[in-house]
């Protein structure tokens, strides 16, 4: 901005080329791929940390792409996104396994549904293999004896969605993106001249105003509110659809496969799947809820998923349950752009023509995790089509180095690590064997972990059998010590979620 010498002025609001609203997997991938270009980027998130929305509570499947309606944006970006995960995991160092996935037909009644899955797989160009019930039972002995066949999709896989989102975000930040957490988008600022289609000039947040030529809407469950502020797609609504899960302790129950049932009209059904941590997860159901923050688990929901799961794997044991959680899908009502396709729950990925300066993403429900990197590339294509000239940074670094994960190392490597830094010798979380060294490294990382849950999402501490009962006091102490705070200020997830109330009388 041009400064006139001598004339006192209001301090100019910070000016960026692009502002990204929302720090789920979509915002993180967009930030990461855009950080490659010579752009000044601000990335905001209303919560205290990144990855606290849908990206934090889902099935963690990198879908092959046979389950989505052919001809939709979902199908196209699912297939394109799926192909990007090996390189992503290699560059960003998070857990991803392309283990293949099964869609399982139980009893002869489901054979027809299995053929429909096959037809979609063929139409979407997804590799697959049809296997007999007998072969399926051989590959997964714990599966229902009623299994009549399955579609095996070799390109499907499982990932650590927390790891992927945080690694991508960190890579964006080290490549120059400015991240502001606990900063909520409230409204747009517009350019004064009104002749042409209105041009966005920036945004208003609860932490002040920020100027930019482009705003990217990656607000997940709130994408409709953001686009309506811009006067775009008034008919578009998001209906949160809750999905509940249970997690089973790997020490009590193990299953090495990803098993989907035949899909229902509203969801892919209740799956029983392994995770990159070896614990099995079971879920989700699909229930429309009015409240976008209502990620509560319910008794009915848990019964529903348990019954559904028993159809696939009859020998599941309730005693193995160590955690329950729920996620909210940002279900949309957007028609597929191709008018020939009769589908009304598609992604929105567009630069609307009625205004200038908005890249509009909406309805990014499943397979949104899988598609996220492809969505980021599509955003870049759209910006280029809109006349934005993007110059690559000569020094862009696609690598986000991994940090030591104690439990993944051999005894020899563990010994070596402890010799170099003794803090890796102190185990804080006994179930997942997370060490003080790992926790401290995350507290001081490029996207610092400064709440209990932030540490949990980065290290998987507290996710095992004891669910934090042993580690929590130690983690609070470490956070306070490393951040120079009073333990009373440490929160679970930011804001008013304080963990402690006051000192005891004798310590007052």
């Amino acid at each position, binding site marked *: 901005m041009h400064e006139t010498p001598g004339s006192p002025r209001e301090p100019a609001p910070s000016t960026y080329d692009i502002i990204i609203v929302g720090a789920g997997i979509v915002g993180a991938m967009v930030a990461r791929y855009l950080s490659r270009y010579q752009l000044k980027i601000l990335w905001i998130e209303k919560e205290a940390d990144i990855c606290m929305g849908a990206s934090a509570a889902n099935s963690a499947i990198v879908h092959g792409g046979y389950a989505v309606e052919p001809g939709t944006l979902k199908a196209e970006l699912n297939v394109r996104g799926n192909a990007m995960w090996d390189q992503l995991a290699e560059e960003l160092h998070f857990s991803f396994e392309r283990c293949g996935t099964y869609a399982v037909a139980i009893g002869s009644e489901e054979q027809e549904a299995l053929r429909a899955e096959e037809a979609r797989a063929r139409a979407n160009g997804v590799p697959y293999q049809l296997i007999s019930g007998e072969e399926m039972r051989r590959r997964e002995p714990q599966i229902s004896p009623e299994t009549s066949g399955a579609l095996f999709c070799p390109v499907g896989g499982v990932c650590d969605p927390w790891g992927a989102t945080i690694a991508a975000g960190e890579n964006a930040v080290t490549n120059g993106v400015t991240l502001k957490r606990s900063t909520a988008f409230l409204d747009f600022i517009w350019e004064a001249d009104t002749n042409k289609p209105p041009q966005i000039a920036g945004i208003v947040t609860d932490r002040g105003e920020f100027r930019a030529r482009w705003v990217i809407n990656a607000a997940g469950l709130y994408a409709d509110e953001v686009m309506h502020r811009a006067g775009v797609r008034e008919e578009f609504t998001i209906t949160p659809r809750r999905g509940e899960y249970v997690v089973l302790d790997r020490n009590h129950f193990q299953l090495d496969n990803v098993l989907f049932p035949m899909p229902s009209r509203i969801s892919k059904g209740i799956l029983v799947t392994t995770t990159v941590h070896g614990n099995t997860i079971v879920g989700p159901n699909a229930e429309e809820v009015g409240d976008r923050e209502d990620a509560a688990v319910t008794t009915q929901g848990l019964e529903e998923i348990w019954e559904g799961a028993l159809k696939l794997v009859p020998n599941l044991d309730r005693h193995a349950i160590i955690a329950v959680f729920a996620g909210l899908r940002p279900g949309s009502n957007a028609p597929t752009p191709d008018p020939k396709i009769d589908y009304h729950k598609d992604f929105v990925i567009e630069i609307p023509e009625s205004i200038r300066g908005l890249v509009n993403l909406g309805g990014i429900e499943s397979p949104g995790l899988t598609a996220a990197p492809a969505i980021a590339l599509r955003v870049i294509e759209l910006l280029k089509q809109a006349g934005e000239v993007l110059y690559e940074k000569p020094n862009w670094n696609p690598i986000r180095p991994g940090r030591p994960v104690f439990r993944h190392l051999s005894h020899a490597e563990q010994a070596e690590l402890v010799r170099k830094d003794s803090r890796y010798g102190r185990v804080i979380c006994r179930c997942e064997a997370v060490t003080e060294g790992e926790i401290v490294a995350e507290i001081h990382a490029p996207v610092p972990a400064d709440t209990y849950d932030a540490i949990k999402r980065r290290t998987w501490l507290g996710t095992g*059998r004891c669910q934090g009962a042993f580690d929590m*006091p130690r983690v609070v102490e470490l956070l306070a010590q490393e951040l120079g705070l009073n333990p009373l200020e440490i929160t*679970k997830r930011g804001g008013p979620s304080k963990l402690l109330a006051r000192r005891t009388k004798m310590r007052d």
Partner: protein
Amino acid sequence: MKEHYDVVVIGSGPGGLAAALAAKRAGADDVLIIERDQELGGILLQCIHNGFGVEIFGEDLPGPSYAQRFINEVHDLGIETLLDAMVLEITRERTIYATSAQTGFSKLQAKAIVLAMGCRERTRAQIRIPGMRPSGVYTAGTAQRWVNVEGYMPGKQIVILGSGDIGMIMARRLTFEGAKVERVLEVMPYLSGLSRNYVQCLLDFDIPLQLRHTVKRIIGRERVEAVEAVAVDEQWIPVPGTEAIIPCDTLLLSVGLIPENELSQQAGVRLDPVTGGPFVDEGYHTNIPGIFAAGNVVHVYDLVDWVTEAGFAAGESAARYAMCGAETARIPPIPTTAGENVRYVVPHLVNPERLSQAEVRLQMRVRQPLEQPVWIQVHDRETLVTRRAARYARPGEMVNVTLRERDYDKVRQSKELRVSIVPH
């Protein structure tokens, strides 16, 4: 520190301390205790209330004082300790891998191992409490550590789910500290902890206990704002119309303890699905030769004195194993079984020959409370081996019956030792 030990004890709670002492006294030269914490003592260090030692010392001591008596002796006898060190893995061949911020990574070989890792608490998910997941939901043991060790209050207005001992003890402790404990909810029709704790910790402080009640839902997005309590019927189904919203900022869970056996499983130690702990004989030998277990790692105790006693027995057998190798029993061990109204019996096997040297205490939990005089009896099929009378039997209180030298003949000829608890 050496690389080879006669006996390595994992965990330094009352079970581990007693095992190490007994092993040393029985003649094992090189005895090592490995403890994850910075100090010896295990959970006792956070149990600053009294009630410990009545059986063993005839004195009513606070937890840390009780532990200190054993810790002093550990030092006096020259038992080695490795603190701030977590055992990561043990093998069937008794190789131990441990890591420590102070002494680094170590690999040790033991002639005998005593597992004394204690237990952990059941959590919210294990009992599947619905609702949001805000901060302010803690196990009673976590709260105990915060208040008694770190000096912080987890909340000001508290509801406790479960009438376990730690929960009741924390109800009193938090009240002392100025918190308001609204009530204790228990899903069962009876108390799950000791009656003495009900009297001393709830009744004396006017804290209501609601039996057959549970938490239907947790309310609050960031921090607990309230819980919805509800009465349940015999099938634990909520009774409509009995819901009550109780404003609070904290929900403590005291809903049971689970022996901590992931290390044991790595070494192939066979676990009893009812106790969650290893199958053991009267010397606390597991199915893996040279691996012994004592204390809450075997089954959950309510009195520390009995943990100490089990630790002594385990340590002594471990020392014998380390010095003489496996003993060959002349008479095959006799299995114990849970008969009428008994949930489980520990030990799972009894070598009759042991009765010529020592008494063997069979420990068990009753299924249903019997508020009347009862027989605790041991049968071999139709033959009565021994029995004793008790004034009542309650699920919250561990029950014992002792086999003595005079029972040797009957035990030796038994096919099984079936224990039952029936009205007089």
